[in-house]
């Protein structure tokens, strides 16, 4: 008979080990899934995890790692701060969209003026847009005690409709021959989020993501505000007793996560994506939740988890092309990863013991 025993304190070893363990179990389970779909599991796993990094066309895929990982890391860092405090912003997808719309709006308003200050203004607008979108659930929670999970999620659907309305309406390219979608910002140098080093995939958004990792690390480990955030999540009553103002923590956590998601959206729309279109958002806001947990809500962990998740995106695309693996299989694969992670996380706080059932 198996029995769970609570550890006197969380195991450090397992805290590091569980994400790795989860990835391995997911690979095995994923392999079984791919086999069930009639694909060679070893080949599929190799295609997803090996080929993008070391395969024949790795020179093309490696930069993609940063392009896809950047927004995931940036959003996940923001979310992790809230998750640490027990504040659940799951509407990052909406904040990402609104950030992109605000950034694009600035660019399109200035078009075709060329000036150095346009891009910084876009960054500001994207950050503010995402932040304000996240301030809605924050203020409602503070003022009325409304559940931030549901409100932030509802706002994703609102944002998606807003995106469609913009792509088909006010932001539609007047020279686009009636096709939906805005002007392509790649053709507008002052607004284009170009690669910092050509061919590296490193654009301003990726740099921002790295800065966010450092910022979060210093905040959580070296600053009183970060300590207050962690304390609020660990023991809300103790935090109040300690003198932490819960309102400030809610506003800060939701605000900063919205800000980072908004930035991610803005860098995406002005860079890799290039335009506001109906299907501009691809679910980074939701995948970032997996990234945040996989990284154990730790900045460095999130950095690694973001890159790993980007790898599955890229590998998934390759597998889709080469092996005919459906794109949904990758989505499922990512979902599975979070599942297994939560399951093995048990080992951090509990010890499993075999107990012989005694004759009662």
């Amino acid at each position, binding site marked *: 008979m198996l029995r769970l*025993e609570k550890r*006197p*304190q*969380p195991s450090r070893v397992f805290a590091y080990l569980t994400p790795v363990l989860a990835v391995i179990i997911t690979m095995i389970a994923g392999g079984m899934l791919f086999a069930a779909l009639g694909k060679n599991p070893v080949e599929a796993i190799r295609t997803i995890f090996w080929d993008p990094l070391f395969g024949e066309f790795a020179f093309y895929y490696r930069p993609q790692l940063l392009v896809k990982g950047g927004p995931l890391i940036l959003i996940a860092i923001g979310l992790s701060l809230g998750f640490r405090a027990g504040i659940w912003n799951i509407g990052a997808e909406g904040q990402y969209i609104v950030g992109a719309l605000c950034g694009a709006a600035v660019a399109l308003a200035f078009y075709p003026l060329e000036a150095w200050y346009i891009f910084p203004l876009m960054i500001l607008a994207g950050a503010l847009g995402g932040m304000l979108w996240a301030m809605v659930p924050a203020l409602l929670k503070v003022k009325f005690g409304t559940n931030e999970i549901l409100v932030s999620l509802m706002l994703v659907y609102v944002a998606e409709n807003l995106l469609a309305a913009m792509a088909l309406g006010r932001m539609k390219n007047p020279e686009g021959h009636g096709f939906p979608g805005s002007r392509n910002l790649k053709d507008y140098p002052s607004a284009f989020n170009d690669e910092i080093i050509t061919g590296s995939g490193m654009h301003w958004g990726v740099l921002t993501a790295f800065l966010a990792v450092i910022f979060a690390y210093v905040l959580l*480990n*070296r*600053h*009183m*505000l970060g*300590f207050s955030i*962690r*304390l609020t999540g*660990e*023991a809300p*009553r*103790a*935090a*109040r*007793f*300690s*003198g932490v*103002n819960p309102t400030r923590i809610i506003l800060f956590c939701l605000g900063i996560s919205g800000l980072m998601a908004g930035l991610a959206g803005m860098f995406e729309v002005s860079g890799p994506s290039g335009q506001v279109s109906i299907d501009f958002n691809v679910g980074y806001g939701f995948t970032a939740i997996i990234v945040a947990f996989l990284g154990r809500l730790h900045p460095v962990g999130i950095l690694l988890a973001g890159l790993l998740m980007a790898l599955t995106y890229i590998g998934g695309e390759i597998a889709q092309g080469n092996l005919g693996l459906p794109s949904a299989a990758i989505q499922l694969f990512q979902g599975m990863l979070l599942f297994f992670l939560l399951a093995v996380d048990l080992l951090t706080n509990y010890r499993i013991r075999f107990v012989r059932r*005694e004759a*009662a």
Partner: protein
Amino acid sequence: MTGTLLSIKGLTKAYPGVVANDTVSLDIGTGEIHALLGENGAGKSTLVKMIYGLVKPDGGTMQMRGAPFAPPEPRSARAAGVAMVFQHFSLFDALDVSENIALGMENPPPLRDLAARIRTVSEDYGLPLDPYRTVGGLSAGERQRVEIIRCLLQDPKLLIMDEPTSVLTPQEVGILFETLNKLRSEGTSILYISHKLEEIRTLCDTATILRLGKNVGTCDPRETTARQMAEMMVGSELQTPKGTGATPGAAVLDVSGLSLPAPTRFGTALKNVHLRLHMGEVLGIGGVAGNGQDELLAALSGEMRAAPDAIRLKGQDIGHLGPTARRRRGLLAAPEERLGHAAAPDMSLTENALLTGAVREGLTANGFLKWGKARSFAERIIETFDVRTPGPDNAARSLSGGNLQKFVIGREVLQRPEVLVVNQPTWGVDASAAAAIRQALLDLAGNGTAVLVISQDLDELMEVADHFAALNEGRLTDTRRTGDLTIEEIGLMMGGAHDGMGIAHAEA
């Protein structure tokens, strides 16, 4: 007495790192009130849980009236006639009295019939109850009645009571004892768990004393002195803290007209609280649990804000200030709940030292943390207060109750407060840690700090406090000198005019 009801032989139960019960044997006679006496952690709860079927013994046997008795779950224990009144009430706040009672029965009658039976039985035993009231709104004493009635409706052969008087006023204790005596005269056996020696001496026929999981002796409590029993229980000569004897100085904390609404649905509102605390004084605040103790602490610590002039510290209005600002001015506090309120369970002791020490100990600079300084502060607490732990990196929840409480109190004491407010400083703490904590509070007062001790343990308050006041439904009585008080007066202060329950029924 007509023979043995329950016979326990060599019961053993081990948990990782601790043997909770080590070959414990005892016999409970029919119609006997049998006391089970021991410190926290002596193994009383584990023993009782085995009798009630919540925990399976590793070894040993039990016999009920000569037949083997090994309940695999509470249901079978109840079927065999064992009923239990829990220490931490096993009640459901949002449900009404009759629903709560139905949940504790195997085959409850329809709720309407049950309600009628509740009325009858509760009147019969002198514990009147309205079956349709929501339990969350009941006082601690009334909640206990629900538990007792729930047991009585099953005609138990053996009634287990775990620390039943810790939530009662002296008058309510009197009512309870009458009920228990009535049950005994009807042939019901009672296993009565307590650490209050005088109670056991007035009520019980036999006492079994547990220490560190072992049965260290059985005695007739009427023939044995409280001191003898205490020494068996603790295993060494007791040390009583010495008071300061100093005369209090100038007033430092002035609370006047403090009123606050109840913070939660089942919380207590504070109503026009007045008190004055002087330098070097220990003021004890008694009262039954749930009469505003948590709220008073929260109002003083700054977790709940009040009107600015409702609380004044050395002449300054501080009622509107938060915990950090009050700490800076010298008003410190230690709440009752160790895990989750006074300390964050999963955080290290260093981090927990930072939790209240940041301001006065200078553990931050421009908002940035000084980990080295925080760590040495934690080490200083551990050393000064003899906290048993491998080191400051260990999580708070890895400490035993007594050690964590020493850490929590020590953390505030070492910050040299001008006023220290503590709630239940020794609740669930072993005797030596309790003595150390009380002595620390007295020493602090000796150095001129004003100390406010909120406690439900009257013995403790009599031991440490110069002055006494009681909380009742969020109202605070006038302050009296401890030395001038009789136990009856204390009971009346604690009971107040509180819906007439205590006094009216005591006479009935």
